[in-house]
Structure formats: C-alpha cells, structure tokens
C-alpha cells in the first residue's frame, strides 16, 4: 500500500488557540452557517403548520402556528456541532423549551425514547432523558430574525449537546415511545447517541 500523496502547501482547517477548548474532537469553528439537508426545503405555510406531541402520552396535543406563538419563549445561546466537522459558537435562538411543551401533556411512564419527525420525511431519535430538563427547545427565531426556511423554519428542534443532525429541521412532531427507533441517519451508519464530546459519529454496529 503506497503512502498517501500530500498536497504541497495545503493546510486544511486549523483551530485558533482561544477556541480550542470549546471544540469537541475533530471539529473546526466556522463563522458562517452551512446549510445541510437531505432534501428540498419543505414549503409549509403558517396556516398548514402543526406541531404534535403524541405516542405514549395520556392525550396527544397539536399546536397551530398562532397557538405555538402564544407559548412562552426564551432566548438560547448555544454552541452547535455538526458531524460533518464544523462547529459554530454562540448561536442565538429564540424558541420554546421542550419542558414548556411537555407541561401540556402527561407522559406515560413507559415513554423512554422520542422520535422527532419533520416535514419532508426526516426523522431522528433520542432518549427522553436527553430531551428534557433544559436540554432542548423548539426554535422559531435565529439571530434575532424568524428562522429562515433553509435552516429549518418555520420551527426546528435544537438539541445542542448532541451532533446537530439530531436537531431536526422543519419539525412536525415528537412521538414518545417505549423502544428506541433509529432515525434517518442513525439507521445508516451514524451513531445512535451522537455525543460530540465523545466523538460519537459513527455506529460501531456496522
């Protein structure tokens, strides 16, 4: 096996000293906000938009857009980490905490996992324990403006402590379940949990 050819004077990406400690392994910091998607941008109107919490809950609940806007909103400033290796610091969002949403439902004690599903068909999964207690929110504003469609607007899930593929864009609902169901990327090679600080990018099951 011959040695890999190295391109003269090609540096790739370098992290500056100040930001090193905020970068999980294998990441580099960016200042723009890359657009990544598995498909075309869904064009759901405010009129047609619904957000549903269902599955192992005593009674499912659905919010229309105007109703969702009535819910108490907070500002969240978080670092985000994409498995494709970019990280963005201090991203500023406004949205509704998952804890606020869950005040409106009674979770069945068997509900240990969640599947987040989106307009356009995307899905991702996580344990309920990682969704609650201030760890996740549904964002409708980014950087002081309504969340752009290409970044998941009208509303998206944000779970900053996990790789950003878990932060489902164009969120349509959360389904609470007893058993874990691997989502779009988790079912094709990506790590089921996805902790950037543990470099949990790929599944070892494959």
């Amino acid at each position, binding site marked *: 096996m011959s040695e890999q*050819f*190295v391109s003269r004077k*090609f540096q*790739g990406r370098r992290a500056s000293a100040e930001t090193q400690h905020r970068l999980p392994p294998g990441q580099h910091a960016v200042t723009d906000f890359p657009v990544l998607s598995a498909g075309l941008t869904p064009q759901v109107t405010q009129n047609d938009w619904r957000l549903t919490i269902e599955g192992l809950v005593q009674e499912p609940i659905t919010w229309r857009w105007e109703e969702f806007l009535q819910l108490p909103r907070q500002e969240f400033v978080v670092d985000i980490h994409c498995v494709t290796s970019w990280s963005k610091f201090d991203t500023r969002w406004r949205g509704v905490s998952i804890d606020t949403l869950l005040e409106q439902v009674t979770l069945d004690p068997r509900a240990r996992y969640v599947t987040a599903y989106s307009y356009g068909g995307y899905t991702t999964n996580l344990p309920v324990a990682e969704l609650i207690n201030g760890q996740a929110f549904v964002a409708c504003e980014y950087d002081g403006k309504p969340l752009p469609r290409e970044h998941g607007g009208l509303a998206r899930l944000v779970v900053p402590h996990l790789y950003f593929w878990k932060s489902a864009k164009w969120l349509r609902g959360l389904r609470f379940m007893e058993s874990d169901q691997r989502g779009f990327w988790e079912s094709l090679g990506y790590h089921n949990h996805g902790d950037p600080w543990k470099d949990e990018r790929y599944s070892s099951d494959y």
Partner: protein
Amino acid sequence: MKQSIQWQIAEVKAIKQETLTVKTFTLTIPVWVQHRAGQHYDVRLTAPDGYQAQRSYSIASEPERTGEIDLTVERLDDGEVSPYLHDVLVPGDQIELRGPLGGYFVWDTTLGGPLLLIAGGSGIVPLMAMVRHRVAQRSDIPTRLLYSVRTPEDVIYAKELSGLSEQHTRLDVIYTFTRQAPPNWRGYARRIDEMMLREVLQSLESKPRIYICGPTALVEVAANTLAGIGIDAESIRTERFGPTGGR
C-alpha cells in the same frame, strides 16, 4: 465503461488565466485514458494531518488531445479546493486526481445532432469539450451554443469561440448577459426564459440533442422551461454545478 478508476498523481504542465476568476490547468496524466466530451475528473487535496478535500472538475479539452487534459476551474471565494488550485499551484506541481468519470452527460459525434448546448457561467466547460471535439472531428453537425454570463469579462474562451463561429457556418454562439451587456449590444441581455429558448430552438432543423450545464438554478429553469414548451425530456441532459460563485 468497465474500468477501475484509481487515484493518480498528475503534473501541472501549464496554467492559463481565462478570466479574472477562471484558470485553465493543463495536466499531464501518467495513466491517461481517452475521455469523452462532457466527462470530469475528481481532484483531491490532502493536508499533512490527513484532512482531505475533494471536488469534481469538467474536462475542457477534446478527447483527441492525448496524454494530457485541461481542467478549467472557477475560483470560488468560499471554496475549499478552487482557491488552492488558483492561489498555490504552479507548473511543475503535482495534484492527485481520478477519472475520467461520467457516462450520462457525454456527447460525441457518433451520437449525431443537431446539438443545442446551454451553458451558465462555468457550465461552459464540459460543453466546450463537446465543441472542441466536434471541431477536431471536422464534423459539421449543426451546433448552437447559448451561453449565459453576467458580463462580457466573464466569458470563458471568448476569443476561441468567436474564431470558431466565424470559421464554421453550422456552429453558432449566442450570448446572453444577465448583469451588464457590452456597449451597443443588440443581443440578449437577460436570464434565460421561455421566449429566448423558443427563439433559439426555432432555426435548429430537427429535434436537437440538448445539454444544459451550469449553476443549479439556471439548469432547473432551462430544463423545466424546455419541458414546459413540449421538448421531449429524453432529449435533454443536465449537469448541475451547485450555487454560482461570487455575487
């Protein structure tokens, strides 16, 4: 083509500045395989720490030119590979690549015509390989090139194209300038639209083979518009280059 495509190290033979943001790199390839017009090579850069970046670039040169290829590359400010090619590479440097690749977006004279080539910006590159191949084969297949660019300074291969269209009666080049036309310009000065496509199709004898290449937005509009005016989808081949470079 049953072919095991391997990465190999090519050498930069020459670099030509085509426009302010576009360069053509002539590369000598150790294991040169004759390509077909429309094909591309994948170019890969590797940093000392193992980090790799890879992009595809269309072959600009005709298959008849053996042993070496031309890759014409537009420098994208936020690109990963094109700034390296433009800013660092000098003749004598080595570059890792594999190819030739592609079997769908290809044309050669045996496929016949007439030929309608629609290019947006750097989308001209694979279509230029088709034009150069046609010329090298001394073919007189009626060929019309509709080339959409922002300004006259953005036209790649300007002199060659004007020379070719002068020399060859059945080869026309039609420009449309979307931001600024040359002084006293009486041709098209707008984005490709239905009326323009109808006019361009008008004097082409029979059902042309159509190749569209350029930024995704342009390809989508051109292909959808052609389908909308009843052009058979089977006669259209497309290659999308992603977003336009520069603003």
